[in-house]
């Protein structure tokens, strides 16, 4: 299969460095160029990557490289719509980060843009390409625990805001400044916005839709953040199964301007664990473990050194196949919309103190 000529925009997303490796290593991709959100990001890029031109604006990059076929939108959530418009105008396929937008009017505009231009737009929910998740899917599908009646899932991490400041900005992360609740000094846009994966997995594993969600936020660990960092979500799916999700930034970090060794204060900086109760058994899984451990440089703290599975290989394989074969990926804008709705409903629940019902979706899933 002919490699896809690909580029990256903005370079401010937390997964940017992972893409540096993926775009260099994948034989299915030819990395053409990048554009940086600002000079600091651009300098950082040049320190990390050789031989790939980096431009000061997306427009300049696209003008200089009309051969670009696809783009990774590695940007703040608030930039996504404008960047998708630029791609649609030039018929460039899109690999979108995990939150296209929280504004559902904008979201529908994105769907229309992509449909009208005939583009592939894949949402980066990389856990679908994680081998542990694949094992869970197969076990559930094979009836190993019978019908699923309850799912508990964690997607807990350190906070990336010191390296990626837009994730602590309500306007750039959530899209606008909405108070978390009356009398609460915080705003929407924090840990919840960073962790859609477990919402997606609950839908995938039950094959059902969210019936209602209920959420509460704790006082922040990081009292200087203006977005939430600790919260819990529970509720029910339309099939009657119940769930409990922890999408918190509950693992403390050193406030490094760039991710790297010594980032962790808590030894394990990221965890996605699932417990599924079925009518005939229980399944527990750690999607990123076990690992290796050390207490060496730079801070002599006990640290979990991940032995990462590379979800990005499967993700890129699917993206490239969809572009070349002219089909839509599993995780596309329409599939992902109910997840965004549920996350918005969590914020509504935090504000109201009540569960929020979700309407049956008319959109194709």
């Amino acid at each position: 299969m002919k490699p896809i000529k690909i580029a990256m925009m903005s370079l401010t997303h937390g997964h940017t460095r992972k893409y540096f490796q993926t775009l260099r290593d994948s034989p299915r991709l030819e990395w053409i160029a990048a554009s940086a959100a600002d000079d600091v990001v651009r300098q950082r890029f040049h320190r990390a990557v050789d031989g790939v031109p980096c431009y000061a604006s997306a427009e300049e990059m696209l003008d200089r490289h009309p051969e670009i076929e696809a783009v990774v939108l590695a940007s703040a959530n608030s930039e996504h719509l404008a960047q998708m418009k630029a791609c649609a105008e030039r018929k460039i396929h899109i690999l979108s980060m995990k939150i296209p937008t929280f504004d559902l009017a904008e979201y529908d505009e994105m769907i229309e843009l992509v449909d009208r231009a005939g583009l592939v737009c894949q949402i980066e929910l990389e856990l679908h390409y994680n081998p542990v998740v694949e094992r869970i899917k197969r076990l559930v599908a094979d009836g190993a625990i019978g019908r699923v009646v309850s799912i508990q899932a964690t997607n807990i991490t350190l906070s990336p805001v010191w390296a990626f400041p837009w994730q602590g900005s309500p306007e750039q992360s959530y899209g606008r400044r909405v108070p978390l609740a009356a009398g609460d000094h915080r705003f929407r846009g924090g840990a919840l916005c960073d962790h859609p994966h477990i919402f997606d997995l609950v839908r995938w594993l039950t094959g059902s839709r969210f019936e209602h969600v209920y959420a509460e936020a704790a006082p922040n660990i990081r009292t200087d953040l203006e977005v939430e960092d600790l919260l819990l979500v529970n509720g029910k799916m339309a099939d009657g199964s119940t769930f409990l999700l922890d999408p918190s930034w509950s693992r403390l970090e050193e406030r490094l301007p760039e991710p790297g060794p010594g980032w962790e204060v808590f030894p394990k900086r990221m965890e996605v664990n699932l417990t599924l109760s079925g009518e005939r058994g229980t399944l527990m899984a750690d999607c990123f473990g076990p690992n290796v451990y050390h207490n060496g440089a730079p801070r002599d703290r006990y640290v979990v050194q991940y032995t990462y599975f590379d979800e990005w290989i499967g993700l890129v394989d699917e993206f490239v196949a969809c572009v070349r074969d002219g089909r839509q990926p599993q995780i596309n804008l329409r599939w992902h919309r109910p997840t965004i709705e549920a996350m918005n409903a969590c914020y509504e629940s935090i504000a109201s103190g009540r569960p929020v019902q979700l309407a049956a979706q008319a959109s194709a899933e």
Partner: protein
Amino acid sequence: MSVHTEPSADSLNAALEGLLRKYAVEPGTQWRLAGPRESRGDGEVLLVAGWSEPDAELSDQIVPLLPWRSEQRFIELRRIVAQKTVTPVLMGRLACHTDGEQMPLGAILYRQFDLAEWLTGSAIKSLYASIRGQLAANVILRLADGAICSVEAGVALPPGTPVQDRHELIAGRGVASDRTVDTQVAQASVYLWDGDGRQECTDVDFELFGRDAAEASLVRAAYEALRQPEIRPALRQAHRRLRRLVQLAFESDQRGARLRVAADSGEDT
């Protein structure tokens, strides 16, 4: 293995008697450590695990024990909070899965609600529960000090499987947990591979050697209730409150609403 909740009553009574004799404790009354389904006679103090008593109101004859409060891992977690080694606690994550025979769903909630309050030192102020029949429950608690706490409960383990549980307290400074980082289930002290396959054991109490943590903590809790009869009214009061909290959880699920817990819920008036 860490929480075996239905040990032989005779052997536990013998262990308790041994402790009373060793420390010269005279209970001054007939007593018996009774299992959940044992018949009860008159004229003796019955020491029972509180979670196994479905009624909120108990006669003076029955002493509902909260054995986990005598389990060393919980004593240490509580101490970590009380001494502000991790502080302030902002969120708790408590999980417990059983086979449904050893502890049914309501019993798990009883235990976990007590642990939420006892470990943090803060009362449950409100709860929102999402429950699937008698199979699984997911509850979000708000504590009086503003912290939140999740309670995950399930009864889908195969019959005879040891209870699987986890307790984590997340604070502004530090995290405390009874599970090792990067593991999902309890680790054992001893692993043995022999002709019978793999065996493991975790011995926690030299005086009660041979008892697992749950058995040892039940005996220890009973011992304290006999040694200090003055704590029995407080145990009955706690039992009433916990029964009310479990009832509220099921009401919350049925009504689809967060329910506030009255300050005097289940307490003596």
